[in-house]
């Protein structure tokens, strides 16, 4: 089971790196989605994989009988998924705004912040 998960995670990371190396922001964001899911799988695997019981303690008992699944990684992943979802929602809107304002999703064509001409219109004067 660990081997399958390791290969899967490796494949996802490889795919995400390939996508994130693109100049196209749309491809980049798909790479980011893939990478964040791969990281969640890493945490999941770090909590040990086993086909065991859910972590429930029976009534009138002080501890669970036998081996139970580790619930902490699931809590961690859940937190990471929620945070990741919020970040992705933000980044999608940011990229959409950027596309609407700059008219491109090609990162090499985006030179407004660091223009070599160093003009005021490029940087600063934001609050005037």
């Amino acid at each position, binding site marked *: 089971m660990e081997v399958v998960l390791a290969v899967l995670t490796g494949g996802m990371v490889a795919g995400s790196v390939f996508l994130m190396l693109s100049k196209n922001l749309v491809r980049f964001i798909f790479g980011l989605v893939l990478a964040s899911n791969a990281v969640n799988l890493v945490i999941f695997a770090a909590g040990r994989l086993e086909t065991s019981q859910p972590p429930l303690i029976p009534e009138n008992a002080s501890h669970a009988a036998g081996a139970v699944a580790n619930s902490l990684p699931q809590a961690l992943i859940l937190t990471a998924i929620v945070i990741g979802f919020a970040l992705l929602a933000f980044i999608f809107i940011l990229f959409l705004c950027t596309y609407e304002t700059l008219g491109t999703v090609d990162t090499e064509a985006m030179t*407004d912040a660091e223009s070599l001409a160093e003009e005021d219109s490029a940087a600063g*004067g934001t609050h005037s």
Partner: protein
Amino acid sequence: MNSGLAAPIIIPFATAAVVLLGRHQPTFQHATSIVAAALHLAIGAWLLNEVHHSGIQVLHVAAWQAPFGIALVADHLSALMVVITGVIYTAVSIYSRGEINADLRRRGYYPLLHILVGGISGAFLTGDLFNLYVWFEVMLMASFALLVMGKTRAQLDGGVKYVVINLISTLLFLTGLGLVYGMTGTLNMAHLHVKLKMVSDPGLVAAVAVLFLTAFGIKSGLFPLFFWLPASYHTPPVATSAIFAGLLTKVGVYALIRTFTLIFPFEDNGLRGLVLVAAAATMIVGVLGAATRYHIRRILSFHIISQVGYMILGLGLFTPLALAGAVFYLLHHIIVKANLFLISGLIQRYGGSFELSRTGGLYRSRGWVALLFFIPAFSLAGFPPLSGFWAKMILIRASLEAGHFVLAAVAAVVGLLTVYSMVKIWSEAFWKPQPEAIKDNTVAPPRLDAWMLAPIVAMAALTVLIGLSPEPVYQLARAAADELLEPGAYVYTVIGTMR
């Protein structure tokens, strides 16, 4: 057990909710912000006093004992960072009145400012690695929104680069903490200090340590991971860029110091050499980048990078003196750098531009701006008797004592090159006569704004004060360094004698 530990986190978040409710009353928003920031500063000072007199403070949130629950821990380093956060928080809250216009206010500037500070305070106080990740995310989310607020072309361009690289850093951090959990079964930093020593495979631990080094290296702007910083820090409003410049990269530096003293102490892995090389390269590349720029805030952004190099140098040398130097440098740098960014706002307002070629004549027309610039600028460059002199002197002395003569030379030369950039701003913005083309366009110059001036004067005074009597600050920094190098007390306070 000390519930006051949660106050520096709760105050900003509560204030964020309150100012959101009063979003149509600018005076109310501003007044509430200042009161909250002052309260944050006062609580921070109280916390530092507690830590200094009665030792490391710990709060087990909801009474769940560490390592099972989340612990908030304040040692000297955390308490000092909270205090300095309070200083910048207060200064920026006051300054905002002069700069933040109705549009930015409508877009939620004030609530986001408080959330940002809440995240920063949380990151400084937490004793749990996953909790640190959560605070980083809170902080990042607020900083993303603040950075692109206003949506100019430059802001969106800079914002995309900032967001993208910081998200990659976050993923590396998350991977690292997942693997650490897999190796040890715990995420409490004090517990990790004990548990990671028991991991039998040092190669695995070192590999994970590099993940943390890369993740926090990106956050703190370490060479060669700093490219997002000069691409974005000069684009938002001045108040925002001041709090970013003062605090955000320093959260990364704090995380590096904490990680590599408590969780992966350098004696256990071979990363010290790598960190020292990165520190030297960061100093040199940052200062050279600044030398080629002619836009005030871009010059200052590159100087952040070069200064981060000094702090990491202190961490890499790993002696009590060097770490004390790093902590001293952190405190000095946060005040000075935030102040320089605030002053760049004055130069832009009275001189007409951030661009050095399109401003000038300020020494003649506004001599006091020149004086206010002079203090932090030459403190940054390390002139006696200002605070930067002592910070640099401690670090250079620590390098010499450790036998790293090349690093001492690099630190000294970078200080000289910093003077070059500062003199460039000085001669262009202040001494040079104002360009004719600009002069004709200038309508009546804006009136003096006390809201903008007050925090700048106060922080300049603080710089001089630290310069004139560095001893108390040094003592606190030294106490922080001693705790960092001997984490036994920290570990004992958080998890007791167990395991």
